[in-house]
């Protein structure tokens, strides 16, 4: 048998890679993909918990997370396109409209 902790460690490593990608990359699309990566890592641990606890809830939650991820990707990319139309750049460190 594979112990539960292996899954969690795997999930943690993937999540951390996602965090790294989110914080380090300049390309906004890759940043988005890092977010997806983090969501997936959470999904892994949820499914693992679901399996080991013999409960369905984890999987249902994954189901909803996938739904939200799809919606988020659609909206996020739409915003990206709308933004790119006005400011032709998707470099995270060149976008500072929030600066006060």
């Amino acid at each position, binding site marked *: 048998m594979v112990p539960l902790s292996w899954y969690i460690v795997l999930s943690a490593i993937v999540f951390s890679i996602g965090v790294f990608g*989110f*914080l380090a990359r300049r390309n906004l699309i890759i*940043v988005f993909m890092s977010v997806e990566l983090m969501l997936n890592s959470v999904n892994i641990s949820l499914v693992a918990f679901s399996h080991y606890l013999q409960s369905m809830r984890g999987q249902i939650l994954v189901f909803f997370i996938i739904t939200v991820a799809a919606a988020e990707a659609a909206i996020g990319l739409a915003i990206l396109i709308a933004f790119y139309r006005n400011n032709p750049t998707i470099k*995270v*460190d060149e*976008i*500072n409209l*929030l*600066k*006060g």
Partner: protein
Amino acid sequence: MLKYTLIPLLPLISFIINILFGRSIIKSKAHWIAIPAVAGSFVLALSAFMDVMAGNVININVYTWILSGNFQVPVGFLIDQLTAIMLIVVTSISTLIFIYSVGYMHGDGGYYRFFAYLSLFVFSMLVLVMANNFLLLYFGWEAVGLCSYFLIGFWFHKKSAADAGKKAFIVNRFGDFGFGLGVILVFLTFGSLEYTQVFSNANIALGQTINILGTDVDLITLICLLLFCGAVGKSAQMPLHVWLPDAMEGPTPVSALIHAATMVTAGVFLVARCNPLFSLSHTAMNTVAIVGGVTAIFAASIGLVQNDIKRVIAYSTVSQLGYMFLALGVGAYSAAIFHLYTHAYFKALLFLGSGSVIHALHDEQNMQNMGGLKKYMPVTYAVFIIATLSITGIPGLAGFFSKDEILWRAYLGGELGRGMWLLGTVAALMTAFYSWRLIYLTFHGKFRGTHEKEHHLHESPKVITVPLMFLAVGAVLAGYVGIPPLLREHGDRIGEFLAPVLGHPQGEGSHSEELMVMGASIFVALAGWGVAYMMYVKNAELPKKIGSMFRPIHNLLYNKYYVDELYSKTFVQPILKMSDKVILGFFDAKIIEGIVNGVPNLIGAFSRQFRKVQTGLLSNYGLAMALGALAIIGYVIFMR
């Protein structure tokens, strides 16, 4: 119970309605709300009076106002014999003056405001007299002060009126400060503010002393003197009398209601109400008597030479209030209340009469520009004569009985009382003189004003003259409840009525002495009349001659002993100067503005640096968020 609560509540309702809807809806119909309200109070007060006559003393708590530990203050009403009489005086005079105001204030821009303030005033005064504890009394006390400020400064666009309002308010503050301290001291001493508890335990304060700045002061004397401070301020006694003559800037009904009949008598009421305390302190009683006696003659002497018709009456008021304090000081509380009650009628009559004159002359107040109004204004003239006969103490009218009672009680009050009696009698002489001088200057001789004004002379409308007639009836008959026992057995019914609250006056005198005192006061009344007749009717040149002969004295009196100037030099100017230099120049400019400007500058400088944190870059925010998450996880792992 509701009945008694409604007595002060009706005027309050009238005030609220008038102040809220007066400008937009009610406008010149304001009296349709105010007069029924105050008349309703009068009817209820009469019924309360009947209840008290039947022997019930009403003491009800309506509502718990303040509850903090053992400090309890209810909104409660005590209606005993003293309050019952005050209620009748306040509500009856108010009703008549409200009716009078309909005529007098007709067409004024602030008509609704006037009735709103008058209603508020009546409410405050009723709370003042009906309170069953010191704090509620204090509330009423301050509220009447506030109303008097509103009403004196009613024509606030006139600078002198606005100033007079401020002066009244500020001068009263001096007295009220003492009064407030007195109330606190009462609570500290007796552990309660309710009359019944304080007065029944009055003896425990006896012989106690309190240490002030290293000297031991008799506690009960201190309490009484502090309370008396408030009374001096409100009742315009020396040395805080300066506001009352200036208060004549207000509309005449206000002068009549507040500055003659009701508010200024609050001080007298206070001392009478606190008689169980005052009776314990000889020093306080003597102070009251001396202040009263000196004020009586001091104010009367100023009244001799004033030319403004309302100021003469104002000084007369101060002087008559002096009489009342004189009576209180010699322990004749019921005599003081008796005089308060008769004085309310004839003084209101004098004021409203002068208002009628002023109204007819289109706001002319200088008596030197009047004269010969007798034939134009017969009703006003008649009521003026009645009021004057009454105030000067001509036998058979109200003023005679009460004033005679005071002088007789003073005469019995030991050596000090004897001196005070002398002062009072001299003041009575002066009173007679200036009262008749006022009559002769105003109504006799030839008209000295412009032709324009002479052309417009007319008797005032019914709505003004009818209240005058009612008051005239009061000025004649009010005294018959207090006929001296000398003239009729058991004639002093008001004294008997008030005895449960105020006790019986001390001292016994023979009938011959009493007749002598009575004779003296009748003599001075007639003498003053005679002198006035000589000077202003028989020989009109005489006043000028005498005036120039005794020019320094005349100037001294005419300028009111320079008291205002003295206060201005000693208090007002230094305070203004200090305010300008220290408060405005240093405190306001440096400290307050330093803080006000410094704080934003500091914040601005700080934010200019701090703003750099906000890079606007998504990743920086993400980094901060991740660090925060790390911190939380770290806490969960390592700290728990």
